[in-house]
């Protein structure tokens, strides 16, 4: 996929995220919009995973630690053909498997997540299994910057470095906002680069809403042989919709019909100027 196609895809994903959140009257809008470019590049360019090879032990794995941004994952998986997009019309409905956090009931999802601070330890174990078995697959996990105070992340950061898991890539969706407000005010975790470097990781920063930059960075993995890789993805919460950007009320705010139409109008316009 060309960079232009990736960018178009990101906008289409944003439109779908909003469409299904509007239908469900539920969802984590802001975080889904901030991380969707990352998922786009991972699934359409970086990772060796598809519905055809999903049961292969050699597939690349993606574990979403910030499970609440599941709507972004759903629209990407639907687009990749893991399930019919129409299934998303049941989002958050009675007995639907398409609930507000990822579960393995949905084809394409590796692990049930939702409680924060769980993705990195599981990803480390998954990457360790590859090393033990001599397999070449890679493991990607996406964390929110707001979940970093969970101590289990730092426990796993130690393990990943100790076992030299250079087949592991953790990506922090650093949109700088969490439900209470600015992450820096809630519990400042900066400087993340120095922290992870001191834990033994190779760290790089990127504009996490730029598919071209993301692709370039992921192509350079692992950043250093023998070290796990950390991507600090600088993103904008609510990215792509002017009135949602950087406004914490969209953490799990759901648009009304009028807001939805305005958002779609903006995204349609963005498609014309790529």
């Amino acid at each position, binding site marked *: 996929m060309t960079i232009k196609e990736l960018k178009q895809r990101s906008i289409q994903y944003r439109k779908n995220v909003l469409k299904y959140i509007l239908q469900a009257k539920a969802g984590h809008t802001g975080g889904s919009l901030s991380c969707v470019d990352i998922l786009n590049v991972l699934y359409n360019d970086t990772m060796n995973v598809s519905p055809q090879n999903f049961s292969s032990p050699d597939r690349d794995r993606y574990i979403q630690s910030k499970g609440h941004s599941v709507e972004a994952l759903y629209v990407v998986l639907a687009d990749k053909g893991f399930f019919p997009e129409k299934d998303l019309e049941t989002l958050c409905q009675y007995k639907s498997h398409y609930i507000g956090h990822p579960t393995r009931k949905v084809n394409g999802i590796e692990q049930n997540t939702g409680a924060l601070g769980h993705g990195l330890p599981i990803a480390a174990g998954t*990457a360790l299994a590859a090393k033990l078995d001599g397999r070449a697959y890679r493991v990607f996990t996406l964390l929110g910057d707001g979940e970093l105070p969970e101590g289990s992340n730092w426990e796993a950061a130690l393990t990943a470095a100790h076992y030299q898991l250079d087949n592991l890539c953790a990506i922090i969706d650093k949109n700088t906002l969490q439900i209470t407000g600015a992450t820096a005010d809630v519990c400042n975790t900066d400087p993340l680069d120095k922290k992870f470097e001191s834990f033994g990781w190779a760290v790089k920063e990127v504009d996490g809403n730029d598919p071209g930059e993301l692709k370039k960075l992921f192509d350079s993995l692992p950043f250093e042989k023998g070290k796990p890789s950390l991507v600090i993805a600088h993103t904008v919460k609510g990215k792509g919709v002017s009135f949602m950007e950087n406004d914490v009320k969209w953490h799990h705010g759901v648009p009304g019909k009028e807001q939805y139409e305005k958002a779609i109008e903006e995204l349609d316009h963005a498609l014309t100027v790529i």
Partner: protein
Amino acid sequence: MAEIITANIGYKPNQDVFSETMQRLAENDKDIIAVTSDSRGSGKLVPFGKKFPKQIVEVGIAEQNLVGVAAGLASCGKKVFAVSPACFLTARALEQIKNDVAYSDNPVKVIGISAGVSYGALGSTHHSLHDFAVLRAINNIIIVAPADNYETEKAVELASQTPHPVYMRFGKKPMPLLNEANDDSFAFGKGRVIREGDDVAIIATGETVYPALLAANKLSEQNISTAVVSMHTIKPLDTALVKKLAEKCRAVITVEEHSVCGGLGEACASYLLQQGIMKPFAIIGIPDEYTVTGSQQDIFNHYDISEKGIAARAVSLLKK
């Protein structure tokens, strides 16, 4: 009357048998993995680690990470035993057991060592009197407390072949064999009748089965016929056996190295009440109080988890 195999009194601690069984299994299966949190010494896994250095994963003192890493390994086909003192494993890492293991159905074998009050004199920080209760309330995890070396060996073998989550707890004390151990009838969810009887039924689990059996022998001297069951699987509970015993006997006593809240006793009581089977019933365990200090045996004696204590409760229950 069932004879206790006295020649084996002072046999091995169940956690030693766990380690030996792990070594035997690992000989022919490179997917057997032990994950430890600086716990290979307490888990008797030092020889395992020496023999199979590529099959032991050390994460340091980090129980949450221990379970998460174990879940990741298990999701890739490894037969993972996550080993840590039961007190820390089932409290600090409870959310990981709930989500990463049970909810995600990653077939991790969660191994709680030095369980119950095995670390008696170290105090309540080191006791696990809550593990049955909290894990019973979590869907999709088998809960097992083997009583003797035979049950331990069978349970570890069976767990390694079970494609779903299992929790097992072991103690440090050498345990006598309770019965002839030469059959292959051990199965999760099927209690072992160690001794038949029809006046009182004692349903015990883990290291309390042995004092229950001693109590039964003592009661026979008073012509009280006592059934003893090793209910090694707390969940799924062998309700058919519980029902059969309660219908047959005049009274039922449960015994466990666990809080009286939420464990084996309440599981049996809940089942029997809902079946409309009303028999004099007592739960022997650790009461809901600041736990007395001392050795495991001191604590057992203090709370009637003893030959004398269980027998006395049986006698008083039969008078009701």
